[in-house]
C-alpha cells in the first residue's frame, strides 16, 4: 500500500493520524533501530531502549518537520534515548559500572574473547568515537547500506565516505588496542 511512498510522505500521513502509515515506517526502520541500539547498549537492555525509541517517535511525531530527512530525525531520537539510558544507568548503578570497568581492565586487546566481552569492548570503543565516525560505521553495519548508498544519504562523494570510514576504523582500532 505504501511501497512507493517516501519516508517523508509516510511521516506526513502519520502526523495526520494514519496509523498504517506509521506502521509502514516502523517496518522500514525496526531492524535498523534495533541494530543501532544493540551496537551501543548491553544485550539485556536492547529491547527496553528500542521500545523507548518507538514510543518517543509516536510522542514527538508532530515535532518532525519535513525540512530534514525522516531518518536523520529518527536517528537523533535513537541517540537521545541511548544517552538517556546511560544517564539513568549511571545514576542508579554507578557502583556496578565501576566494577564492570575494573574487570574489563584485565581483558587483553585481542578480539578473540567470549562474545560478551567482545561486545562490551566494541560498545565501549564505539561510544567514545565522534558522532560522524559512529554514524558511518552504523550505516554500513547496522543499516546494511553500501558505501555508495551512504554517500548518497550523506550528500558526499564516494571517496569522501570511504575516507571517513577509514578514519573511523582507525579510531576504533586504536581504541581497542588501548583497551
Amino acid at each position, binding site marked *: 500500500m505504501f511501497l512507493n511512498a517516501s519516508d517523508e*510522505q509516510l511521516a*506526513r500521513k502519520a*502526523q*495526520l*493520524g494514519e*496509523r498504517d502509515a*506509521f506502521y509502514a515506517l*516502523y517496518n522500514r526502520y*525496526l*531492524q535498523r533501530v*534495533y*541494530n543501532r541500539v*544493540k*551496537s551501543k547498549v548491553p544485550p539485556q537492555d536492547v*529491547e527496553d531502549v*528500542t*521500545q523507548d525509541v*518507538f*514510543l518517543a517517535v*509516536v*510522542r514527538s*511525531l*508532530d515535532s518532525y*518537520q*519535513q525540512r530534514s530527512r525522516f531518518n536523520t530525525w529518527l536517528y537523533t531520537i535513537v541517540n537521545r534515548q541511548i544517552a538517556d539510558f546511560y544517564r539513568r544507568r549511571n545514576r542508579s548503578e554507578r557502583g556496578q559500572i565501576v566494577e564492570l570497568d575494573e574487570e574489563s581492565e584485565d581483558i587483553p586487546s*585481542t*578480539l578473540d574473547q567470549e*562474545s560478551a566481552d*567482545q*561486545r562490551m*569492548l*566494541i*560498545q565501549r570503543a564505539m561510544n567514545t568515537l565522534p558522532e560522524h565516525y559512529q554514524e558511518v*560505521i*552504523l550505516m*554500513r*553495519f*547496522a*543499516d*546494511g547500506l*553500501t*558505501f555508495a548508498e551512504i554517500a548518497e544519504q550523506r550528500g558526499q562523494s564516494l*571517496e569522501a565516505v*570511504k*575516507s571517513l*570510514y*577509514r578514519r573511523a*576504523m582507525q579510531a*576504533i*582500532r586504536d581504541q*581497542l*588496542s588501548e583497551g
Partner: protein
Amino acid sequence: MDNDSRLDEKLAKMTDAILNDQPFDDADDEGYRRVIVALQQTIQPSQRPPEPFETRLQEAINTEWSRRPRRRSTMTPTMRYLAVAAAVALLVVGILIIGLPPNSSLPVTAGGDSLTPEALVILLGGVGIAAVAGIIYWRSRR
C-alpha cells in the same frame, strides 16, 4: 593515488567482502580484519528482533498512539506560508483597487465590459480563496 586513498579503497573492499561472507586475504591488515569481524558479530545487520518482543512493542505503540492528541491543524508550515502569502497578496490588491478614483472602472471582460472596483475585489477574493483551498486539497491528497 596516495597511501590514504589506497587504504580507503582496501578497507572498503575488505568490509564488503567480510559482510558478504567472501574471502579477503591480506596479512598486512589483520588488525582491521579483526575489527570488521568484531563489528559484524556485535551488530549483525540481518538480525530481526525476537517475535515476542515485536508483539509487545506493537501493543505499547498502539497504546501510545491512542493517547496522541488529535492534530488541530492539518496544514504544514509550507502550506501555512502559502496561505499567508495569498492572503497578503489579496489584501494588497484590494487596497490598491479600493484606492482607485470613485468613478473609474476596469475593463476586464472579453467583451470589453467593465467591473467596478468593489466587484473586482469580490471576484479576486473568490479566486484567492479557491486557490488556497485548491492548494490545501492538493497537498492533503499527496
